[in-house]
């Protein structure tokens, strides 16, 4: 029985419920840090006490894709890594979001060569792009807030 059924499934209630669920989801991000490269250092900085990602309700990393709802792709993805990223993404349950952290994941960055995937959006859908090589913690937090906005205002699946 879905949440909708409990409340009778009427339109008026659903829209308000959407809002409530969106608000709740926004502050309970369980992220899966798919950390491969240099951006991981700034990810650590963002997570640690100076910048404290916990203030945004995203402090708890889950290292199992099945328990996570935001996939943070932190660092360069090359051709050898790409199938693994794809598999991790497929293992995550809906609803799920993807953050491309750093310019390598956005476009491949200055690694225009035989080994590097030119943007992870060629493999999986991306919700928020955080540019920078690596992005400063402030940029990361900005990106996170954009994601929260997207989560809140988007169509809620439940």
């Amino acid at each position, binding site marked *: 029985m879905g949440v909708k059924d409990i409340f009778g499934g009427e339109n008026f209630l659903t829209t308000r419920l959407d809002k409530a669920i969106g608000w709740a989801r926004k502050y309970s991000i369980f992220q899966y840090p798919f950390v491969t490269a240099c951006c991981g*250092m700034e990810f650590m900085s963002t997570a640690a006490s100076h910048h404290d990602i916990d203030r945004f309700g995203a402090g708890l990393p889950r290292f199992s894709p099945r328990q996570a709802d935001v996939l943070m792709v932190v660092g360069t993805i090359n*051709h050898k*890594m790409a199938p693994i990223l794809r598999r*991790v993404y497929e293992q995550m349950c809906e609803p799920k979001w993807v953050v491309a952290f750093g310019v390598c994941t956005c476009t491949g960055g200055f690694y225009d060569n035989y*080994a590097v995937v030119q943007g992870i959006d060629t493999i999986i859908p991306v919700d928020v792009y955080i540019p920078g090589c690596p992005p400063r913690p402030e940029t990361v937090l900005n990106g996170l807030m954009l994601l929260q906005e997207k989560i809140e205002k988007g169509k809620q699946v439940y």
Partner: protein
Amino acid sequence: MTVKEQLIARFGEDVTPEPSRVGDEVYIVNRNRIFEVCQYLKESTNPKYDFLMDLTAVDYLHMGKKPRFAVVYQLYSMSTHRRLRLKAPVPESDPILPTVVPLWGVANWFEREVWDMFGIKFKGHPDLRRLLMYDEFKGHPLRKDYPYNKRQPLVKNTEPYEDKEILQYLQRIKQDEATQRDSGPEYLRDFLKRRETFEGDRSTRSFLLNMGPSHPAMHGVIHILLELDGEYVRSADLGIGYLHRAFEKECEVVKWGQVFPYTDRLNYVSPLINNVAYAQAVEKLLGIEITERAKYIRVIMSELSRITDHLTCIAANAMELGAMSAFLYFIEAREELYNLIEEITGARLTISYVRIGGVKADLTPDFPERCTRVLQFVREKLKEVHKLLTRNRIFYDRMVGTGVIDKETALHYGFTGPVLRSTGVEFDVRKANPYLVYDEFDFDIPYGENGDNYDRYLCRMEEIEQSCRIVEQALAKLPGGPLNVDHEGKIIPAHVMADYGKLGKTHELLQMEAITDPTLSGSNAEFYRKIYPNAKNVVLPPKEVTYSSIEGMMNHFMLVMEGVGITPEPGEAYSAVEGANGELGFFVVSDGSDHAYRVRVRPPCFTLMSGFHKMIEGDQIADVIATFGTINMIAGELDR
């Protein structure tokens, strides 16, 4: 008798010395006798060159040399701290030469990499598979005729190891068993003996476990295939290349000066050391001596970087063992260091601060004071973490006696840095082959005894303190005077490097004195290109000069345009520094153009990981995490 005479007396025409412009000791060796030459150098010469520092190859296709390839061996003498380079030419038609794996275990991975990247085979190699690229990849990317941006289709999502491969792997192990029963390590002998008694007709099969490339308790992407006997690791096989970003190929595409951003991202925990190492190699090739002040600044920056590296390593290691508070304390200290570095260099992490011929910008006037404050803060945190971890029962129990490696095995696998020093070998490039101004400082190198995780942890903790000491001494001694060498190797006073243009003070540009540029060439560019290598014109002029005078503009233009700029004479050089994880060496080859012909980096992590299985075999599975943490593997450097 010198080594040269000894070699020639023994091998005659098969070994010929090659003159080196930069003073390296180089010999050309007949490829068929490379094993004998290496063995002779390792065991019989005086002094013995008993340590394989690096093994790589160069493709001379565009330089028109015959034969096309050369496999390059960098040997090191642990007793006299001297370096020697062997080059074995290999023709394209028959790219095969004898392996040196029986002499040095580390050659296993080096040779696999050369096979992967160049397609050169090694006769007698036990396991010649691809290392950095995936099996489906066609071609050998570091060959000159492989286009740098030729991508191949992504492969399908496959199981990391199919059943077939596991069976093959078990087969291989079974073949080894016969030898290991007699000569293998003790735990393995025990294991095999026990199995024989229990086995009877019901055969046991050990359990295979894939760890990584995306594993919660490991920072860095690596794939470890563990063969488990209950809770104990019997053997391990490592898969790397999950962060291969074609650093060495990319360096051949961009200009000499543009390589710096790529070096930042090798060991991204201590980028400044990479910058310094690369700049030093190119300066050796150019024959440039940098100014005293630049040397001191490079030392300061290298040591600050080393501190950040060790802080991060210990923090991550402690976190993976469950000590979150130590992580938070150290990252707090690292954040202060990042802020300090940012003030000088303009970036927190990927810095590109060092330039060929000097550094990008001078220190700010209040730097010494701020730096002292930050070091004080680091020391406070160090003390706190000492209290938290060093005598902590849980931490102690998990670190002591795990991940043990002995001296001989460590040298066999080419270990350097804190991991080697934890076994008691006294080798630190800063002391053994002092570069920059390291011989002017009073600092100690911590050594361990047991070669276990705890010793490595203590070594790193102590090295942080020693790096603080070096920075303080360097700040006290910091000489004034010029910062960079200018075109023609002359020095530029620091105040001229102030770069008012970048500070927005454009009105001051007009008052600047214009400097006549000797390289102003116009239509004579072709003429200057010929004489350019001798003019040590490597540092961009200050923006004031660039914007306010046509000569400055031309000078700038000449440095940044395609085809001109920094153009070392043809030649090659190897230069090494002490990275945070061990010897970080750059082997650069120039063909006289403005692009590097080949940049090879000798990554310290690579050798550490090639011997990683020796450290975890016989340990419990949980110790893999602790050992992996103290190794401080950085994927960017490992896979390049």
